[in-house]
């Protein structure tokens, strides 16, 4: 998958809040079909990078091009990019007043202008895929965290995105529910989806990632095309310290 053509180009992107700089002139390219895991300590800028790619945060300087569309101030460009890029959040963010089915069909109907029948059919296919077709008519609050996150993945996939962003998708879950979400993500990775995953699940990263990026203090300090090697023998001292802390904890 490392030979896919570039689908996201990030050039010299900087983002700060007051005196705090989350991204310090970060440049990186992501290729079609690639699964990239982004790791690093909290506040190192990994989530901010993800959020600039679909303009939930606007970069201060620098350039981002997604699937040939430049993320400038043109609202049409921003909406077009967002329609191609699915996002899964740490806190699921399902629409609490809508059923599972309505959560999934809303955007395809409004943005893609699909008929209700088509949107519903696609929604059930996706629910089948994440193993939740029996829960279509429930409200998010009636589901467990793991189930909610799987619905959130189905909701993002319903837009048939070219790229999926995962922002710590398992961090808010009870330990026994982490696996069911990782299983769905593993499946998605196998299907050839371009995935950018901010995660603390090192086992998942090691197994699924084509590339691992390590963030520290707003910079990419290490990048590896060989996750096995990266996890067993990282070269940057910050990555070494971080990974040993994590190993220590688990």
């Amino acid at each position, binding site marked *: 998958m490392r030979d896919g053509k570039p689908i996201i180009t990030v050039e010299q992107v900087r983002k700060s809040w007051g005196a705090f700089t989350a991204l310090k002139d970060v440049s990186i390219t992501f290729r079609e079909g690639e699964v990239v895991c982004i790791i690093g300590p909290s506040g190192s800028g990994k989530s901010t990078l993800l959020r600039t790619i*679909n303009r*939930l945060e606007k970069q201060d300087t620098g350039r981002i091009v997604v699937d040939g569309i430049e993320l400038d101030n043109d*609202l049409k460009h921003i*909406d*077009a990019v*967002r*329609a191609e*890029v*699915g*996002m899964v*959040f740490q*806190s699921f*963010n*399902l*629409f*609490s*007043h*809508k059923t599972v089915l309505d959560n999934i069909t*809303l*955007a395809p109907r*409004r*943005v893609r202008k699909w008929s209700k029948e088509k949107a519903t059919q696609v929604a059930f296919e996706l629910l089948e895929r994440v193993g939740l077709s029996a829960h279509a008519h429930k*409200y*998010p*609050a*009636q589901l467990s965290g793991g189930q909610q996150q799987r619905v*959130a993945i189905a*909701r*993002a996939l319903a*837009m048939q995105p070219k790229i999926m962003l995962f922002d710590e998708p398992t961090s808010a879950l009870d330990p026994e529910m982490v696996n069911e979400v990782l299983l769905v993500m593993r499946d998605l990775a196998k299907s050839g989806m371009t995935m950018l995953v901010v995660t603390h699940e090192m086992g998942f990263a090691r197994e699924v990632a084509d590339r691992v990026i390590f963030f520290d203090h707003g910079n990419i300090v290490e990048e590896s095309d060989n996750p096995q090697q990266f996890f067993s023998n990282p070269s940057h001292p910050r990555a070494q310290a971080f990974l040993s802390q994590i190993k220590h904890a688990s």
Partner: protein
Amino acid sequence: MLNKLKDRDSLILVGSVFCLALILWLLALPLSWVPAPIGPAAHQFADAAITTIELTIWSGILGILLGVVAAIGKLSPIPPVRWIADLYVWVIRGTPLLLQILFFYGLSNTAPQLQAPEFWIGVIALSLNVGAYNAEVIRAGINAVARGQVEAARSLGLNSMYTFWDVVLPQAVRISLPPLANNLVALLKDSSLAYTIGVVELTMIYTRVQAESFQPVPVSITTGLVYLVLTTTFTQFASALERKLATGKR
């Protein structure tokens, strides 16, 4: 359990509307059994109760619409729109309702083109009044919708209009419902001030019957009891609606 509870709420919803209709239809009957001065005026009380409810329902509906518009205005990114909404809420909440009713009555008498039945002058003044209070409630409700809900909607490619109508407003209304219901009950009581411009509602009947009979105590107690019956059906309706709309929250 959940289904049973929801069914009970539906029953209360339908039941309270049915009760209100029944009360308005049959009110004259029990009142006619009461000795003078109430009995002979039973039909006047019954007709006036209908007028009071009509005033409340018309002003209530228009007041919600005004409240939504003013709340959106208050949150508008365009400064002049915000100023107009702020001015409206400031003036209405800072002056007595009685004065507002008298103002619109006076205004309608300044030119023949502005002439309108007292009932509709009352509706205009009451809905502008309750609209200002609703605006604050709905604005607070909009602000209380979790930020992640908006981010999820935007990340799916929904534009700001769809995000507002499909995601933010329904949740804001649900959050605002208890205080909105309070405002509606307050409106029912405030509608009594319309008697000053000649609307023949409950308080007007009080003044008439007590003036004829010189028995203010039994007449005011009767009027108060009719108001109590009406406000009670309203609060029952509102709390059942609130529980029903809270479904997704559980």
